[in-house]
Structure formats: C-alpha cells, structure tokens
C-alpha cells in the first residue's frame, strides 16, 4: 500500500488478522459433502454463497465407487508395469481419484477436457480405453490420439501449456455460438498447484476472463510440485487467485468425490450457459511419488502421508455406502474382481504393444510431407537395410 494513503494504516490492520487466520488454522475453507468418516453433508456453501448438493440414486453412488476403485487399480497396475520395465515412466494418480472421478463424471458428453499427464482417472470417466495413454509412458508414441474424437486432449507434459489451449478452445466454442442452455458446450482445463506459477496459466486466466470463455480451471492441489511444497508457489489459497482475474473461485475437498462432482457440475453449467470461467481448487494429496523416477522420502515426512491416508477418498465412500446400506459386502468383492480382470487385461495389452518401426520417426512431421525429409527418410532406410543379415 502506498505511503501517504490515509487509509493505509487502518486498512492493513484490518486485513492482517484475516490473512493470518486463514493461514494459522491450517484447515482450508473447502466445500465438502462427504466427510472422511463417510458422513453425508446435505448442502455445502461456496465462498460466494453458492449452495452445493448432489442428488444421486443408489446406482449412481455405486457407480462412483466402482470408478474410484477401478481407476486406482489400473493406476497400480501401471506402476507395477513400470517397475517391471514395461513402461519407461508412470505418473501415478494415487490419492487423487475422487478429484478426477468427481470432475470427470461431471462432464457432459459434449464437453472438452485438457489434461496434464496425470489425468488417467478423468480419461477413464470419459469412457476412453485406459490403454490409450500408455504408449506415451512406454515410449512407443507421444500420445497419438485425436483430441476431438475423444473430447480429451493429448497429455501435456510442459507445465501449464494446456491451460492456454483450453482457453482458446473455449473461446472457439463461444465464437461458434455453442454456449447457452443445457446443451451448450463447456471446457475443462486440468493443472497442478505448481503450474499456477507459470506464465501460461496466468495468461490463460486473463484470456478466459476478458473473453468470458466457457471454461473451468480445475487445479488439483496435491500439495507438491515434485519436491516443492505448496508454500513455494503461493501465500494465498489458490482458489482466491481467481478473484484478482475477475471470476469466481472455490476450494473443494478433492478427496470427496461427491463434492468434486457438485462443484465441477455447477462450474461447467455456469460456463456452458455463457456466464464465463471459474476456478476450482481441488484440495487433495499426492499419496505416491511424483513419478516412478522420484523418491519422496527425500522431502516429506511419513506422518504427513499418514494424516492424509486418513482422508482416503475410497475409504470414506465405502464407509458411506455401508452406513447407508446402499450395498452389502458382496458388492465390494464384485468390484474388486472387476478391477482385477480389467487390470490383467490392461497388462496383457501393454505387454503386446509393438515397438514402432524406426523409420516411422519420419512420419507426420508435416501434413503434406517435405521433399527434404522424404530424402532423409530414404537414406535412413537404405542405411538400415545395409545392416540386414549382419550381426546388427
């Protein structure tokens, strides 16, 4: 605050405790509809007074549980495949299942998603075969799918870049006149807590705001960017960043699949109806390593992980289903069995993924090729053929 501003002293005095209070309690102000103990909360209030609730049938509750378990199981299978040398790398979503299943199920068929490299759960909820992103992690391709066919962009490894792509896509939706009403289109951009420091992400906030893009920024705050804790990226709760850019922000319990669904559905519907972007901060925790290359024991303590273990997204849903007598024990056996079958199926198909032909590296550099590159490819083929029959 500028010196000489007559209101400065009193205003900063009033503001100071508010900031401290938020930081000191440690408890985030989050939207929650299912407590870690599995208690249902009927209605939760967002910071702007929005009332969040869900009204699921028993079948839908069971469906969400199934998604959570399947997504975790397939993720564990991928981690195992990496350990066995079948994947070069894996970025596990362990702990973030509810944020991904909740937001993923909140998408309507016409909505478009822009993932990072960790949104395997969202991908699953889009009805996409979980084998699709494994080529990237195995090292046989770099994505290779059509974003428009699946309404799911390719994974983006460069931190934050996809938020701008999502914004531009959403601007295009508006320019095409596809917002308004129930069947309007909305777009969701996924990114992490670390990504919020990137210029691209901040620029996407500006763009989305001034062009009123039909976009939901979905930040999974899993508390870490590799080794760096949240405090390295921000001094205010991330959802409050939205205010400065001119759109609403809300923090949701990212380990609560019901609340994650409710806030995302609301934000998407707001966007699709033409009322502009919003930011959701899904407050969660990365239970595993950053990727299979990482060793988290170097930078975080076991007790912190244990504290989050008690907030597990699947355990609370299970407790809820049992308490409400929505299911009996046989349901869980059946789901576990299904998860096992699907993961075995996934494993078999990964093992059978063929390596690409070396010459294929020359494909698709340009839509219509290039004479220079064609020549390079021909020389390469000739060179490779010169080894045929030899020890190479």
């Amino acid at each position: 605050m500028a010196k000489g501003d007559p209101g400065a002293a009193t205003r900063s005095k009033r503001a100071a405790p508010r900031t401290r209070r938020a930081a000191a309690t440690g408890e985030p102000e989050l939207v929650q509809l299912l407590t870690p103990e599995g208690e249902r909360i009927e209605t939760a209030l967002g910071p702007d007074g929005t009332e969040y609730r869900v009204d699921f049938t028993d079948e839908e509750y069971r469906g969400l549980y199934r998604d959570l378990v399947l997504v975790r199981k397939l993720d564990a299978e991928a981690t195992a495949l990496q350990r066995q040398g079948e994947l070069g790398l894996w970025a596990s979503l362990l702990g973030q299942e509810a944020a991904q299943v909740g937001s993923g199920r909140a998408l309507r068929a016409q909505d478009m998603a822009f993932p990072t490299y960790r949104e395997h759960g969202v991908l699953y909820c889009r009805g996409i075969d979980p084998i699709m992103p494994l080529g990237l992690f195995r090292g046989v391709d770099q994505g290779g799918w059509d974003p428009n066919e699946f309404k799911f962009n390719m994974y983006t490894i460069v931190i934050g870049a996809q938020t701008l792509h999502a914004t531009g896509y959403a601007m295009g939706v508006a320019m095409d006149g596809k917002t308004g009403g129930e069947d309007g289109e909305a777009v969701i951009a996924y990114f992490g807590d670390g990504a919020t420091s990137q210029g691209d992400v901040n620029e996407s906030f500006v763009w989305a705001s001034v062009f009123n893009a039909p976009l939901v920024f979905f930040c999974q705050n899993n508390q870490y960017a590799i080794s760096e804790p949240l405090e390295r990226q921000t001094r205010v709760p991330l959802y409050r960043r939205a205010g400065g850019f001119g759109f609403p922000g809300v923090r949701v319990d990212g380990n609560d699949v019901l609340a994650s669904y409710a806030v995302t559905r609301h934000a998407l519907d707001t966007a699709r109806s033409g009322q502009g972007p919003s930011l959701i901060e899904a407050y969660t925790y990365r239970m595993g390593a950053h990727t299979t290359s990482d060793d988290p024991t170097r930078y975080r303590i076991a007790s912190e992980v244990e504290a989050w273990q008690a907030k597990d997204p699947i355990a609370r849903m299970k407790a809820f289903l049992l308490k409400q007598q929505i299911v009996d024990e046989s349901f869980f056996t059946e789901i576990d069995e299904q998860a096992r079958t699907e993961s075995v199926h996934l494993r078999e198909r990964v093992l059978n993924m063929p390596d690409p032909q070396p010459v294929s590296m020359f494909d698709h550099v340009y839509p219509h090729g290039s004479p220079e590159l064609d020549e390079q490819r021909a020389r390469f083929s000739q060179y490779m053929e010169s080894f045929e029959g030899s020890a190479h």
Partner: protein
Amino acid sequence: MATETLTLGKALNTGLRRALENDQKVVIMGEDVGKLGGVFRITDGLQKDFGDQRVIDTPLAESGIIGTAVGLAIRGFRPVCEIQFDGFVYPAYDQIVSQVAKMHYRSQGKVRIPMVIRIPYGGGIGAVEHHSESPEAYFAHTAGLKVVTCANPQDAYVMIQQAIASDDPIVFLEPKRRYWEKGPVDLDAPLTDAYPLHSARVARSGTDATVLAYGPMVRTALDAATAAAEDGRELEVIDLRTLSPLDLTAAYESVKRTGRCVVVHEAPGNLGLGSEIAARITEECFYSLESPVLRVTGFDVPYPAARVEEEYLPDLDRVLDAVDRTFGW
C-alpha cells in the same frame, strides 16, 4: 594432489560447491534444486550446507527463474540457474534471448550479467517427450550468449567453476546421459592454471580423419575411434567444449593434416552447429580436404519416442559410416 574418481554428476556438484564457497555472491536457483538436490542430484547437499538463501527452490516458472536472475545479476549476484530439462527452457527463451543476451550491449558495457544457465540436455535415457532435446543451436545463434558443454568429469568440475567466474552469461549444457560416467578429477588444481573455458581440446590423436564432437557425443566419437583403430584407421577426436564462441584452431590444424572431417551432434542437422562448423572448415582448409566435411546428426524430426531413440541418435556405426564415406569420395 587429490585426484578422485567421480561421476560427471558428482564432479559438477563438487564444482558448484567450490563456487559457493569461493564467492558469497554465487546463488543457485531452480526447480527442486534445494531440498531434493535436483532431479539429477547435481545440487545434492548444497542447500543443507549453504542455506536456502543461496540455494533457492524457486516457484515453477522458467521465465521467472531467468528473469529474476537478471535482476539479481544487476544487483551484483552471480546466479547459477538450473533448468530441469532441455525441453523446459523455452518458457524462459524470451528472457534469455531478449534480456540476458542483450543487457551488456544495450548498456554499452555498463551492465554485466554473469549468469550461468545449466541445462541437462540430450537423449539416450529412455525418457518421455521434452526430456531429450538438444537446443544448443538456438542459443549459439544468439549474440551475447556464450554456450559451452562438458564431456567428462574433469571438464565438468573445472568448466562449471570457470563459467560461474566468467562475466558473460553462459548456457552450460550438461550431457545428461553421461552424468553417471566416471573419471579422474584433480580437485586441487587451481582454476587459474586450468585449460581455458572457451577452447577445444584434442581428446584422441590420430592421423587419418578428424572427428569433431561435443557433450554426449564425445564418448561416441572416442568409441568409434577405438573401433576404427582395430581396422587400422587412426581417427583424431576433438572435443569442442565451447559452442559459442567456437574454437576451431585445433580442428583446422587437424583437418589440414588428415584431409577428412566428420562433425557429430545429437541435434538435428538442419542449421545445427555442424552446418556452421562445416562451412568454416571448408573455408579454412579447402585445399587440404580430400572430401566434403560430413555431418552425423539427429534427423530433422521432433525428438522421437524413446523406443526409437537409439536409431535417431548418432552412434558408433553412423560415425564410422561417415568416416568410410570420406574415404570413398
């Protein structure tokens, strides 16, 4: 004399430690460089020993890392910035090319930016996209920047200290796939006596053809020379070490003797360092050349998926194939 066997990574770590000890104004900054010690552990233990004011975990933004380092440099610090992987330097490209490179020129010499930008680069580690690129030409093409790269632990240890001591902004490229290769490092030799930073060095003497390489490809070129020797052909291998400015004195001398020259790099051939080098060798050694200068490089495609990188990367066979072609001309 304390000569120890160190990996290239540990040699860099030791060099950085020396630099922090010797100059209070040296600060290290980057993503995960502090508590974690960097994803490759090149800064391992440095934050613990020098504190978080000198070894700084930054927010996740490369433009921010380089841009704030410019400010620190103007303030009199000597920032050593780590970019986590080659493919992640581009958000900082504007700061590097438009700001870092031009400050000295624009200020008519009044502002110096004694910054080191460390970048693990190159492929061969089976990584996913954006983790295996060779961006040296982008930087070497930019006046005002200097670009160097080390190929063995001894050079890693010395060159990182020389780069930090230099008044120029220096892009310091680290051959990531060689981080784990070991070699002797003389830890006592004073920096003042060291081989100059911006100079190439003969890595193996030979008489029949000259192979120019740098960074990760020096090992490949040396392996090729060993194989060629078994066939009775003696290759001279020159480790270029400095990519901007280039030091081709030894190369000219060598090519004038051998009459044959092959340049090797991982980066794509089109407008790569090899193009400039071939042009200069041709201009300088034209009447000694028995064949055109040949280039062995990555192809002009985006760095491909890991399962075909072996075919993308120049290897011993491709180097020898090019050497053969210089003889068949």
